[in-house]
């Protein structure tokens, strides 16, 4: 009987507390958390976080830059090693930043039909980001990427690189066409948000979109020239960038530093410009050299001393050597301070944390058009485009910190363009144009790496250190090791589709 009493008591308590979880929804609501956001704010942050490569990554592959030291974990593309540390920055930076933000922002903006221009800009920019991913790795997660929260896709499939390019083409075409000069003006946009009107901004974005389409078309040069020609024509007809005013770039500040320049400052004496690049600047008396290269008395005191930028005194570190065997190099230049007596980045200018990052430029566009014209895919003079591309590249330096407003004078430009090794000639057009593309993209390794593989220029000598690549060049970056363990099924399928996961495998447009 007593038990019954207790059971009754227990029952009563349970009943009384059957709202045992009544206030839980309030308890589990974070009133200090931000649960709604304007997608334009995610978009502007995505622009800021867009990745353009890394000094020890792409710029090292294309022999512009080198970490000369093999001190453990520093061996990557400088020594032909497939080192995860140098394969992951692009992947992680794209997927965890721009892709994540853009996928979320696009989802939010889908409910906002009035913001068609914002939506189109985000689609174009997303296409840009994925293009760099395909160019770097080949098959990558695309259709299912960035959707862990939205669609609970934790293990996205890898889409075929060629198929992604097809879709990027469609996206670009469709997004460019959807833009409406009478619709929303996106002031949050870093690139053209200050143009004053939606119409002006739309025009700029359409030129950006077409310039990106031009680049996409050019990528087909080796694998499908006819397709390349048709897309390039379409892009140029649609209207590409017309001046440096159209460039898509970011300038950085004290609070938000350039994402490219946070690396080679610590232990700066590890890092040098590579010999082929310095030789190119020297042999052509390139006026850009003084903003790029500098010799420091102590290669580690790069932030506290002023470099010697005299062109004749610049020497690049030989490719294929490390801190120990460089002494055996026939032209070894000896030690200096903590490091070696070779040229480094000019840390006041190109290596500055405020230095701008250029994503899509007038210079790139004109140089690509020079090649297209040379191939007779578009109208116009290859030489004129070539020279305009060079001038545009030189004008970009005005935007760097610690350079004058006219960073490179008209006279300097003129004499450079007429330098015997620079002056245009049809016989040598492809090498000339693409060597300029290489220099123009000193701050955008992702693009110079892609164009080097597409065009085969500049004519570089393979790095023979360890000779892991058997005299070849790095053709792509390997997938992050994490994918092997964290997305194994899709990773394995992608490796099978690509024919391996090493540095010698080629992306679809990079046929031998």
């Amino acid at each position, binding site marked *: 009987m007593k*038990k019954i009493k*207790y059971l009754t008591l227990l029952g009563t*308590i349970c009943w009384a*507390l059957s709202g*045992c*979880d009544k*206030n*839980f*929804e309030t*308890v*589990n609501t*974070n009133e*200090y*958390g*931000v649960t709604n*956001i*304007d997608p334009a*704010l995610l978009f*502007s*942050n995505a622009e*800021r976080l867009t990745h353009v490569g890394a000094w020890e990554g792409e710029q090292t592959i294309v022999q512009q830059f080198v970490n000369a030291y*093999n*001190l*453990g*974990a520093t061996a990557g593309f400088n020594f032909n090693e497939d080192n995860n*540390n140098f394969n992951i920055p692009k*992947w992680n930076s794209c*997927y*965890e930043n721009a*892709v*994540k*933000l853009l996928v979320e922002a696009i989802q939010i903006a889908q409910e906002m039909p009035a913001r068609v221009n914002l939506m189109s800009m985000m689609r174009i920019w997303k296409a840009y980001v994925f293009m760099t991913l395909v160019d770097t790795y080949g098959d990558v997660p695309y259709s299912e990427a*960035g*959707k*862990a929260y939205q669609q*609970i896709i*934790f*293990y996205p499939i890898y889409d075929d690189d060629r198929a992604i390019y097809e879709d990027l083409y469609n996206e670009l075409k469709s997004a460019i066409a959807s833009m409406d000069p009478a619709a929303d003006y996106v*002031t*949050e946009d*870093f690139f053209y948000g200050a143009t004053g009107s939606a119409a002006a901004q739309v025009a700029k974005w359409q030129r950006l979109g077409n310039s990106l389409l031009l680049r996409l078309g050019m990528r087909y040069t080796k694998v499908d020239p006819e397709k390349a020609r048709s897309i390039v024509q379409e892009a140029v007809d649609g209207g590409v960038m017309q001046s440096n005013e159209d460039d898509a770039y970011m300038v950085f*500040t*004290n*609070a*938000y530093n350039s994402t490219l320049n946070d690396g080679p400052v*610590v*232990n700066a004496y590890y890092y040098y410009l590579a010999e082929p690049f310095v030789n190119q600047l020297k042999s052509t008396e390139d006026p850009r050299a003084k903003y790029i290269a500098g010799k420091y008395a102590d290669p*580690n005191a790069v*932030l*506290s001393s002023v470099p010697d930028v005299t062109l004749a005194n610049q020497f690049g570190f030989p490719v294929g050597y490390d801190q120990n065997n460089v002494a055996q190099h026939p032209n070894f230049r000896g*030690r*200096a*301070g903590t*490091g070696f007596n070779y040229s480094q980045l000019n840390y*006041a200018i190109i290596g500055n944390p*405020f230095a701008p990052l250029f994503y899509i430029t007038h210079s790139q566009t004109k140089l690509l058009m020079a090649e297209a014209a040379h191939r007779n895919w578009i109208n116009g003079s290859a030489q004129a485009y070539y020279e305009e591309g060079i001038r545009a590249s030189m004008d970009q330096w005005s935007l760097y910190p610690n350079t004058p407003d006219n960073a490179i004078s008209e006279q300097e430009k003129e004499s450079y363009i007429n330098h015997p090794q620079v002056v245009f000639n049809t016989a040598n057009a492809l090498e000339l144009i693409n060597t300029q593309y290489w220099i123009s993209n000193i701050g955008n390794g992702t693009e110079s790496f892609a164009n080097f593989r597409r065009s085969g220029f500049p004519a570089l000598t393979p790095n023979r250190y360890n000779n892991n690549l058997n005299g070849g060049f790095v053709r792509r970056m390997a997938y*992050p090791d994490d994918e092997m*363990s*964290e*997305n194994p099924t899709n990773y394995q399928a992608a490796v099978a589709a690509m024919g391996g996961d090493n540095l010698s495998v080629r992306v679809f447009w990079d046929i031998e």
Partner: protein
Amino acid sequence: MVGMMGIIPAFLQGQEKPVRGQVRDSESTPLEGVTVQVKGTRTATATNANGNFSINASNGDILVFSLIGYQPRELTLQNQMVVNIQLTAESRSMEEVVVTALGIKKESKKLGYSAETVKRQDLLQNRTVNVMESLEGKVAGLDISPPAAGAGSSTKIRLRGQSAFAGAANSPLIVINGLPMDQGARSSNGWQPAYDLGDNMQQINPDDIESMTVLKGATAAAIYGSRAANGAIIITTKNGQRDQGIGIEYTSNFTVNSVLDFTDFQQEFGQGQGGQRPTDVGSAISTGMLGWGSRMDGEPIVNFDGVMRPYAPNPNRIKEFYRDGTVFTNTVALSGGSDKGNFRASFSNSGAKGITPAPDNRYTKRIFNLGLNHDLTKKLHFSFNANYTKENNENPPQVGAQGPGAPNFLTRMSTSIPLAAFRESAVAENGTERQTSGFQGTLLNPYFAKGREFILNDRDRFLGTATLRYDVMDWLYVQGRYNYDYSVSKLEFNTPTGRGTSTPFNNNGQGPGFNGMYHIEQAKGTEINTDFLVGASKEFGDFSIDLSVGGNIFKRDVGTFIDEVEDFTVRDLYSIQNGINKTINNYTIFRDQTNSLYAFAEFGYKGMLYVNLTGRQDWFSVLNPEANSEFYPSVSGSFIFSELMKEQSWLSYGKLRGSWAQVGSANGIPPFSNHLFYDILPNQLHGRTLGTILGTRSPNALLRPFSVEERELGLELRFFDSRLSFDIAAYEKVTTDQILPVQISNASGYTDTQQNVGSLQNRGMEFMLEVIPMKRDNFRWTSSFNASLNTTKVLSIAPGTDRFVAQRFEGNEFIGALVYEVGLPLNQLSANTYLRNENGEILLNDNGRLLQGPVVNFGSALPKWVGGWTNTFTYKNLSLSMHFDFKAGGKVLSSSALNGLRQGHTKASLIGRREGENGVVFDGVYRNGEKNTIAVNPQDFYTDYRNLQIADPFIFKSDFIKFRNIALTYNLSDYVKNKFGFIKGLTLTASCRNVALLYKDLPDYDPEAFASSGDNRVGYEQATVPTTRNYAFNLNIIF
């Protein structure tokens, strides 16, 4: 002893009358099983669960009340019909009466599970700043690991193994006077943070502890529900005694910590590389961390600062750098009582000077404790406990990461650079840190940090418990309790201008200010537990029933303000206002609630057979509202078979126990984790606002609690009048539906998501043996040994995966990973191995250099065996105690060994450059099967271990045997009592902790010198402060 356990019918005698009454302890808790005997007769009875008894006796008879663990009392009957009396616990009590869940005291015979009481002298004779540290090796099944992270650091507490994957709270629940709290270890976790800010056990003064019970299994804890899935440690603080005047107790303790240096580096070759010593300042800097120079000859060479010093070894750099640490603790306690109640108030002040001088490490704490009991009426009892702690931790050493902090620096700089050079030349002309090595960003001179870099942590905590108990009838009571836990903490730290870099100016001198960082955060938290309990107990002939029903609401609410700035207008002025860029600027909250209802019942038969049933339902606010509650049942039983063998005099006590329980836990599910949050970045960029998605974890709204199912069987035997005691327990604990931060493809936009996946099994045995080999009038030798064997096996991970990387020791952590793999013991240390051919020979390339083999598991980082052996010799008032403890069966991955080898510091790095050697001719074969004959430059060869991530030479056994403690106690109480009447007791103790490290496998370091008390960095050795030998002197006076 046996007699008191049964209920012996009282005989009727002449002139007798029934006398009723109740027996309680000094906290007014009714005592069950107290033998009440009429002196000189066989008339006796025992109190029931409510402490009530009834016995027939005559006026003038003397009633004797006795219960093991309590001082017996006698009372002469003078016409009373009702006798209420109180028994006082004996100091060496707790063998028989155990404080169990919800503070209910029970005779241990009734328990169907392991509950071990800690001997108070273990806490007092073996003092450590954190009270838990002194329990290492003392309790079977309790695995204590104190990190080498300075004064005021946390301890790792694991009961019966790690029951859940890293991320959940795997330490037992701590219950102080009925107030439950998490251990809350704020341990170093690599870079975030790289220092240890202690845990909640620090806030307990060992002098205040009355009893400490370790409830090992899930059954014991089932009643605490989800928070106690890893068992519980029940602490009761002291109270005054009734019917006594005011007493004062004073305890003073002084401890000196002396640094133990286990490093045995090579002292033959000095700074340099390629066999060359530096010739100019540049190369003296770039090779500061390399010991690949030439043979040291004492000739002067240039150092990083341009000063010429002898090219000679400095083998004692570690001892020269660190200082003797000290801890000085004083406690004064005031206690007293009347017939209506009692009180005790104590105040303790503890000041520690850590061994790290640069930056100066100091820790102080003050603890105020108050206990009150009062009978408001005969039936209504009130008790109140309060504990207020103020802690101040200055500059806890930075450990476990390659970066700031002395440990990393001291073991990785070449031996030929004297400590004085670093001290004298820490600062360059422009006020920045002078560069000392080529690893500029990560090998940071502690002398530069001194006076410039700070980590300051203040913590105030108030714990209060108020209990009101009403005895409705002699067999029924109702109790309500309110627990309030309030804490405020402030943390500030900085990165000084000019640290590690060569310029104090931000951004190439073009930036607007001086570099550096300043961070300040303040957190305020409350935890409130409100509970009620209705308890009833009755006896029906041979049967007894004890029933309780209760409920609890647990609310937790923490708010944290964080402000962090970077770059300063005024140099070396660390304040928010002076900062140019905001890096963090936010207010965050953590809030959850758990509601619970529970009931438990105990059925007894003839005092020899007991069955206990418990059930608890928890509702969690953090879970999906569709499925937010869980039910946890348990059943346990005990059989005191010695009751059936009373004629066997050799057997003093025999008990068989068994239990089954299921407990769950929502530990590891943070609130609001079902929702995605956005955020606005603190600074604008070119006048534009930047938005982001908060966090890298994809929210999961469908999480369930994980569950723990545990079975246990135990046997307890005592022989020959308890001269030999023996306890063995076997258990199996399976944890399923674990909440694991499953790493997902980064291409999903997020890096991980929490999922209910994976299960773990802990299986083990606990073994205790206590012998009294010698017992004379004045002499007693007690020897007790305990050991536990535990293996933790991964049964499953996520569907489709059999391997999970819990932690990658990558980047600045150098090598390997902590891995969970199905079918293997938990916490596998995993890394690449040598590439071998089918004969098992190590393959080398054509240049005689290493090749990278596959990633393999090198074994579990968890020890299998943990135990200790204590011998206590007592002669008259003198007592000598010696304690040894050991751990065995685990592995450690030493990143210091990797760095020491590749940088040319360890003795292993001598291979290849000894007399007659031209380089490393590694014992391996080429691909064609021919034996290697090529000598490789040692620096190049050993650097390949780093490049290729081959861990074979850096894996060691983490086993050790330590002569942990020796303590000599002299109890002068009798002497002083006679000599000075007002002094009631005086005890002096001298002790030494970490007397000797008798066995280890890990070279150069103490195998216990690890950085973290968490589960992510188990078995990973890197850059900890040295362990110490502690000499302690203790004085206790009672007035």
